[in-house]
């Protein structure tokens, strides 16, 4: 089983090294194209002027933040169930990237909100659930950081991620429901305006770029984690020899 062979961290390390450019370079290219289309080709919005262009970062970031959480939970779960170290490391690597995208969508959302709504923040359902998602990432990362033994950290993280993933839909809907109960939202998100074709193109390109970037950065981070753990292990082995 060739695949099985690559599931060992030590074997995967060089493979990951080779894979990184294949994702990083297209990511860079697509970012360049996407930003160009988004900022220069796409027409100015008749309501919001140019402020809406922040969407090209905001929306992919928000999507990535949510997808990556699920992906992280899946990897962590596989790592736990099958004792696959590489999979667990993958989960740890994804967590930071996911948290970063979530934070990015919060920040860009806030910068978008200021010109359009006149406020940095409102307790809108989507914003709130994104914020909670960030907290969930933070919990996962903090838990893993607090545990010295990497194997134990992996498994504890897996339990938390799985519990979190079961909860995410519940949280999402409860927040949705919470906000609409009190008031018809004073300000709605853009809704679904018929987006101009260049806008949609730019959005999709940016989304693809974010995906490629995520893969590349996760691989980089994975390599760091592998290296760090091997070093720790060999340092201990050396001393105990």
């Amino acid at each position, binding site marked *: 089983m060739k695949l099985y062979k690559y599931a060992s961290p030590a074997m995967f390390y060089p493979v990951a090294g080779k894979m990184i450019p294949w994702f990083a370079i297209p990511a860079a290219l697509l970012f360049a194209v996407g930003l160009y289309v988004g900022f220069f080709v796409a027409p100015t919005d008749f309501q919001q002027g140019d402020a809406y262009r922040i969407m090209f970062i905001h929306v992919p970031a928000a999507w990535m933040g949510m997808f990556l959480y699920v992906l992280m939970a899946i990897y962590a779960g596989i790592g736990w169930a099958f004792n696959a170290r590489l999979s667990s490391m993958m989960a740890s690597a994804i967590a930071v990237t996911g948290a970063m995208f979530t934070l990015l969508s919060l920040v860009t959302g806030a910068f978008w909100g200021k010109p359009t709504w006149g406020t940095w923040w409102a307790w809108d359902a989507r914003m709130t659930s994104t914020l909670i998602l960030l907290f969930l990432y933070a919990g996962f990362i*903090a838990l893993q950081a607090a545990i010295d033994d990497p194997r134990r950290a992996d*498994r504890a993280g897996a339990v938390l991620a799985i*519990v979190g993933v079961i909860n995410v839909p519940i949280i999402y809907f409860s927040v949705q429901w919470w906000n609409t109960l009190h008031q018809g939202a004073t300000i709605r998100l853009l809704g679904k305006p018929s987006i101009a074709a260049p806008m949609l193109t730019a959005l999709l390109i940016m989304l693809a770029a974010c995906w490629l970037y995520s893969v590349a950065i996760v691989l980089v981070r994975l390599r760091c984690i592998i290296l760090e753990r091997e070093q720790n292990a060999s340092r201990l082995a050396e001393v105990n020899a």
Partner: protein
Amino acid sequence: MLRWIVWRDLILAWRRRSDILSTVFFFVIVVSLFPLGIGPETQLLRSIAPGVVWVAALLASMLSLGRLFANDYQDGTLEQLLLTPQPLFLVVLGKVLAHWIIAELPLVLIAPLVGVQFDLSKQTLWVLFVSLLLGTPILSLIGSVGAGLTLGLRGGGVLISILILPLYVPALIFGAGAVEATIIGVTPAPNLYLLGAFAVVSLLFAPWAASAALRISLE
């Protein structure tokens, strides 16, 4: 044997009655801090009362959860509990049940009294009581997972809170929502049903996750 685990924890709690009192006091103090920090307008206070009481309950239960397994862990009893001839999730369930009786039930009972400070109506107090009665088991159940995961870690107190507070959000929304609904004259029923459903989901998953967490922490 489940019976004995609950019984054991109740005896232990009774020997340390002051802990129970401390949790109740903490709850009361946190709730009372708000009028101090916010100012005395009755109207304002009444409209924030459900949120404040519920958040205080969350925090109080979270603080007491730090002790759910910690004492047993420190003196080696938890290892022994893992080695009893019965499924681990029953042990967890027993301890969670005891924790609810010890740490949450008193809050539920005292909450209407605290609500009076905020000038809530009789009916609202009643809904507050019911919402807490339905909601606090969720806190104990989900909290047990966090308590299991953070066992033996430094900085456990803060860590457990950032793990479980986000997971408490639905309970908070439905619970406080039910009370809020009563205040503005709407029926609290849907909120209470949702709260009950969430409690059932927690009951199904939490003991299982908590026993997994315990095994991991004790390795």
